[in-house]
């Protein structure tokens, strides 16, 4: 007799539902929220865990391996039967029995005098060498620690040790008032900030029963798509840098700079921080937006011609860092990474937010660096189209009356948007205007294990290229 917790969750996966969140609460409750991609309906599976143990889903659903390790680290609940219960975000510096989301720390813990490194999984055998990279890197990138097992130049195994940037965001959010949450949520990740802000706004509006008007909705779409353009420009600039194609790298950085200066002028911030709040979005003149899109196209189109016409560059990307559709489904991969391998899922098609603008998911099938590059190129153009359409509609739109959330809003809700890095989910519980629990599951979280599967079999020198083509957030994942 299979445990109902396992049976119900496996049934969700078999029905092709997407896992939104798997998380716990202080009173030993586990909750998995699934999204049915056809209907857009959510379904929850809950478990009242007996004391400190719960049956692990990982042997049946490998995509939750990290979620369960995280629950173990921050709550202390033990997933029985988990095949790899090494610490994920906990380090040897954490005091014994320090479980931040169970204990609600009011002060910083007394860190132990120890190195922060956790044990690594490596390959043993004759001729195998171990190469450690990070947590500090030679270039200007976020901190992460990777342990490669190599045979000559070929990667046999990659063990990713993330959470070097773990700040304790979910714990910090607990107890905050509705007014105070926005400034924190905005800064979870600069690359996905509008998506995080919009999630928080949607959560409060859903809990308060507020139905946002068309002007507010279109204003948010413009911001979400502007963020996608910015993020994709950044990622598209980095991939040529990974193979020494400096002209394409520098020209893409120049387009990105032009885009950021325009965002600064229109919205007051180069990354769109603090532009979305519950019941509010920063106002913009639609004519300015249309001029902006027109101007960026004049730089973008020659750049696209340059990179697509460069056979050496395209050959260099082909067949490198392959992720298969089977792996994407197995690990619940999201965003560009999953669409490049043939998975037809883009949360924008489900969001009432986008109404009849009908974003078209861009899908390729090769699952290599070239496919991920190509999907971003096409998605960027689709985003420019959506901005134009939304701006054209905004012209005729009266400004919505300002709405402020009530002080004593209460309830629990799971909200999501499609960030530039994939399905971005917030699981929010608020009691009388204060946050009880705030769980953030960014699309990148599900894609890191996929990266670890895409790298083996490639030369270690290709890791930077593969890594840049995944372009996974550390800050969204580490929190």
């Amino acid at each position, binding site marked *: 007799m299979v445990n109902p917790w396992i049976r119900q969750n496996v049934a969700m996966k078999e029905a092709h539902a997407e896992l939104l969140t798997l998380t716990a609460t202080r009173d030993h409750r586990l909750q998995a929220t699934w999204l049915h991609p056809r209907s857009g309906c959510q379904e929850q599976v809950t478990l009242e865990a007996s004391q400190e143990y719960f049956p692990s889903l990982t042997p049946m659903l490998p995509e939750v391996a990290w979620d369960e390790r995280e629950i173990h680290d921050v709550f202390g609940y033990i997933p029985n039967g988990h095949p790899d219960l090494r610490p994920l975000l906990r*380090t040897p*510096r954490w005091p014994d029995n320090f479980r*931040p989301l169970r204990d609600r*720390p009011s*002060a*910083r*813990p007394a*860190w132990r005098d120890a*190195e*922060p490194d956790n044990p690594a999984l490596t390959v043993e055998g004759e001729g195998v060498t171990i190469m450690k990279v990070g*947590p*500090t890197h*030679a*270039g*200007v*990138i*976020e*901190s992460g620690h990777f342990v490669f097992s190599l045979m000559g130049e070929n990667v046999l195994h990659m063990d990713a040790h993330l*959470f*070097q*940037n*773990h*700040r*304790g*965001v979910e*714990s*910090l959010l607990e107890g905050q008032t509705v007014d105070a949450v926005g*400034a*924190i949520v905005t*800064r*979870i*990740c*600069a*690359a996905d*900030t509008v998506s995080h802000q919009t999630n928080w706004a949607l959560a409060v509006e859903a809990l308060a029963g507020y139905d946002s008007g068309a002007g507010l909705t279109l204003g948010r779409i413009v911001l979400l798509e502007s963020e996608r353009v910015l993020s994709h420009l*950044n990622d598209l600039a980095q991939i040529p840098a990974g193979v020494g194609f400096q002209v394409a790298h*520098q020209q893409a*950085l*120049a387009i*990105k*700079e032009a885009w*950021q200066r325009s965002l*600064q002028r229109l919205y007051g911030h*180069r*990354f769109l*921080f603090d532009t979305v709040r519950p019941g509010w979005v920063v106002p913009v003149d639609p004519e300015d937006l249309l001029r902006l899109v027109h101007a960026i196209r004049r730089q973008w189109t020659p750049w696209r011609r340059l990179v697509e016409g460069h056979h050496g560059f395209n050959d260099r990307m082909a067949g490198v860092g392959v992720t298969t559709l089977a792996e994407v489904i197995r690990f619940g991969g999201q965003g560009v990474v999953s669409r490049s391998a043939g998975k037809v899922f883009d949360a924008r098609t489900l969001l009432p937010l986008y109404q009849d603008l009908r974003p078209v998911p861009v899908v390729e099938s090769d699952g290599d660096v070239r496919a991920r590059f190509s999907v971003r190129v096409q998605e960027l153009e689709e985003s420019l189209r959506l901005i134009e359409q939304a701006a054209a509609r905004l012209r005729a739109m009266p400004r919505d009356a300002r709405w402020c959330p009530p002080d004593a809003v209460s309830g629990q809700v799971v909200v999501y948007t499609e960030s530039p890095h994939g399905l971005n989910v917030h699981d929010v519980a608020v009691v009388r205007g204060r946050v009880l629990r705030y769980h953030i599951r960014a699309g990148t979280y599900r894609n890191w294990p996929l990266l670890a599967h895409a790298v083996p079999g490639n030369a270690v020198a290709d890791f930077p290229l593969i890594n840049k083509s995944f372009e996974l*957030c*550390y*800050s969204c994942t*580490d929190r």
Partner: protein
Amino acid sequence: MSNIRHSLQIRHVDAGSCNGCEQELTALTSRAYDFQQVGLDWVASPRHADALLVTGPLSDAMARPVERVWAAIPAPKWRIAFGDCAAGCGVFQSAYATHGGFPKADLVIRGCPPEPGAALQQLRDAMRWTAIDPNRQVGD
């Protein structure tokens, strides 16, 4: 003629930033700011560095690696806190897994994240001080 006397080679370490500071630091290398032409650059090794630039509120997992990088930089050397989190005035100062910023910074560049044009100016100003008197700390 520029009054730049020498170069300032910088080692960057992220200690819990949101990646906004990193993107703006990368923008400094782009043709819009081209900070290499005035003698600034990122270096891959602390042995080649004159300064350590840290972003983020100093996550606990990065606290030791940061100090190890600092110890590996030959003197004279300077500490730069880049962005509000590293400066000790960001939104994550009181999060449990942070140390609230990069301590004892000689140069603090504020902003969330700092605007690259303004950051470039502050780095150029710092180059003047470090060139006139290598023993003088920037913040003196």
